[in-house]
């Protein structure tokens, strides 16, 4: 029974993953962005657990646990703390309007499905269908980084890209070796901590968390010199 159930479950989770990515793009209130981000972390953990069950790979259970703790709980909590302390709750007007962003996101998803086709043909893994979605999520994460003005949303976009890569790793290779995964997990954690520190520093220096403000400030400084 599990021969068909597990792939179907993984496919369903992949669809949900894509949904969270779109939701991240669509949301404007920072707290809801954060909620969707946490949801993505939980989805990752579930996917890892399901794949672990389907392939009888016990190392993946540890991966699942790490994803749950780190991506589902710790990182969202760290970012939530930053948001509360800095009193930023709303993303200001994005660089591109929402409809346009969604259309581009749709095009990127189609593009991902198109380019993954030749790979899916040669793959024998049960999770191969999720590759295209993981790919689409990477591109959507990058799109999020491009279209937002606040540094916090850009960091969330970056972490979403990382989530998608993790998802791709589970989908395409049944997970990376545990050592590598632990290493990456720590990297992401450290990066999040450093980002958190930076947010405070940036606000102190530039009086704003908008990337354009920093840019304008730097240009201005160049002109002075």
């Amino acid at each position, binding site marked *: 029974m599990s021969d068909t159930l597990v792939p179907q479950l993984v496919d369903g989770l992949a669809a949900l993953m894509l949904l969270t990515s779109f939701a991240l793009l669509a949301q404007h209130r920072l707290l809801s962005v954060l909620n969707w981000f946490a949801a993505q972390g939980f989805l990752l953990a579930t996917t890892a657990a399901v794949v672990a069950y389907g392939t009888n790979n016990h190392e993946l259970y540890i991966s699942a646990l790490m994803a749950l703790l780190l991506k589902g709980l710790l990182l969202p909590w760290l970012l939530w703390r930053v948001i509360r302390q800095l009193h930023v709750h709303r993303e200001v007007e994005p*660089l591109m309007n929402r409809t346009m962003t969604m259309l581009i996101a749709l095009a*990127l998803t189609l*593009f991902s499905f198109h*380019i993954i086709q*030749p*790979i899916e043909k040669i793959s024998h893994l049960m999770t191969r269908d999720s590759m295209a979605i993981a790919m689409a999520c990477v*591109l959507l994460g*990058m*799109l999020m*980084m*491009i*279209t937002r003005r606040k540094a916090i949303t*850009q960091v969330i976009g970056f972490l979403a890209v990382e989530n998608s890569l993790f998802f791709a790793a589970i989908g395409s290779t049944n997970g990376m070796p545990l050592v590598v995964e632990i290493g990456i997990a720590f990297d992401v954690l450290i990066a999040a901590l450093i980002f958190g520190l930076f947010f405070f520093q940036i606000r102190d220096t530039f009086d704003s968390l908008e*990337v*354009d403000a920093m*840019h304008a400030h730097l*240009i201005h400084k160049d002109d002075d010199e």
Partner: protein
Amino acid sequence: MSGFLSLDLALAACITALLAALTPILRTSTHVLRSMFCLLLVATGLLAMLSGLTGLIAGGGAMLLPLGLPWLPMHVRMDALSAFFLLTIGSLLFPVAIYSQGYLRGESQLTVLAIFMPLFVLGMLGIVISDDAFTFMLFWELMSISSYFLVAFKHENQENRKAAFIYLLMAHMAGLLILGSFAVLYAACGSFEFSVMREAFVSPVWASAAFLLAGFGFGTKAGVVPLHGWLPEAHPVAPSNVSALMSGVMLKVAIFGFIRVVWDLMGAGDFQWWWGALVLAAGSCSAVTGVLLALQQHDLKRLLAYHSIENIGIILIALGLAMLLAHYGHPMLAALGLIAALYHTINHALFKGLLFMGAGAVLHSTGMRGMESMGGLIHRMPWTAALFLVACMSISALPPFNGFVSEWLIFQTALMAPQLGGALLTAIVPFSAAMLALAGALAAACFVKVFGVVFLGHARSKEASDAHEVNDWMKVGMAIPAVFCLLLGILPVLFIPLMDGVPQMMLQVSLADSVHAHGWLWLTPVDVSHSSYSASVALLGMLMLGGVAFWLLHPKGTNVRRSVAWSCGNPHTHARMQYNATSFSQPLRRIFAGIYRAEEHVRIERNRHKLLTDHVSYVVHVGDMAVKYIYQPVDRFILFIAKFIQHEHERGLHAYLAYTLLTIIFLLAVYI
């Protein structure tokens, strides 16, 4: 075993050069440092000469150096070509090192010179003996970069920094092109070793690509018009002993590289007809442009730099002729052209080195490079004047000096060339011979100007009248190449068989038998019925004519009356009444007005009354056409693009992220 002797000597020369570069580590006083590194360079020069001679006489050998990358060992090899160029390098380095001992006296920033001059020499020695593309490029870059530091030596002047930057830029462009040429050859044979490249078959199209890349790359380094932009900037600002090496030897190393890649690696069998024609055209163009611009220079070292362009042109004319003749199946004549080119190579190294050393002596003694404020130096600096005159006569191709022999050989090649190919080729050979003749005549005029304005007449400034003779080290340094010039001029019959290994290697023919078929006295390039030349007889005839003339003009018992030079009967002469550099070259500026496009400004001041002239000033400026019509447009174009990209750079983080995403999408779309 004797074959390895010359290679061992060459490696020993490399080691002494390396040791010389390490002398500043000892932190001794400037005095000791100078003596040490000059002495080591003298040893390097001697070893290089010995190695070259033994290599030419006893043949070469190959060796694998225990250096380099693990999968890419360094190959060195000695053959006739490398031995000949080692001899050329050594025979100029030896006197220049002696000269440096005197020239650098009182120089405070000695460390820079003591590090980079030996490294520069090491680079040149390494290029000549290298036997794979990796080693070649390694030493090539060593030579380029260390000479950059030498050009930037007096970097407190803005002019020097600018010259050094242009030099670095063009040297790197040349390096890139040469690397491209090796890449084409590598693609054809799959190995960096020259021995494999020689055997490889290259399709005609790719061979042409490699030829063009090598031609432009080595041409840039050699200063072929219109790739010569760096040369008249870099040579004047380097210290004179370095300019002597740069002009005398470094340009020759570029010629070596060209011969190595095109003649040796690709082989004479692969030549296409237009290769030779292109080299011939570039050579003719360089020869005439170089000398025409040299005529209008008033900075002594800059003038000499333009003459280097001219002489590189002459060498290329000979090489181009040889390439054409080799393609159309006349190996004997091609060998003659090749010999002529090589002969001119070593000749130019010697006399141009001597000229730069002479210019350095004048600079050392007067502190000036501008010819307009010199004059009458023959009285203060008789030794320098006499030795400089020898170099002037050599470069003007006057017998019995060496310049005549090589230019005569080139003319012989051109004149004996039979009908080749189509009408274009039939026309281009005599045309280039005519260009060579024109360049020779103009060069003679130019050196009459140099010697007349600098050494004869009255002093035009206080510095010139206070000049003093240079010290003995410098005199000896200048005397050695002068002696070599005379020897090479008188004994070509003994020297040409020594070089015979090169045509044997490239064309499998030997000139040795025909050259001295009529004894050591007569040089007969191909056949006595065509032409022959005996320097000793010419020298004897000249001495007799001179003696007769002297005897007729100064019969016994007549008192010699001494008077002011160039006074034309007027007892009250003034330094400003004599011909100066600008006025001497004025007729030629008129004749070649179409080429020079000189900007002349005459300003007459009449402050008091319209009929009373207070002051007249005449300013003339002759620019380099290549700079105006090639370098500046390229410069503007690159700046325009840079401005455009600069605008893109200021777009901010989002644009960069967008670029990243678009790049990823593009790569995915194209490669999957």
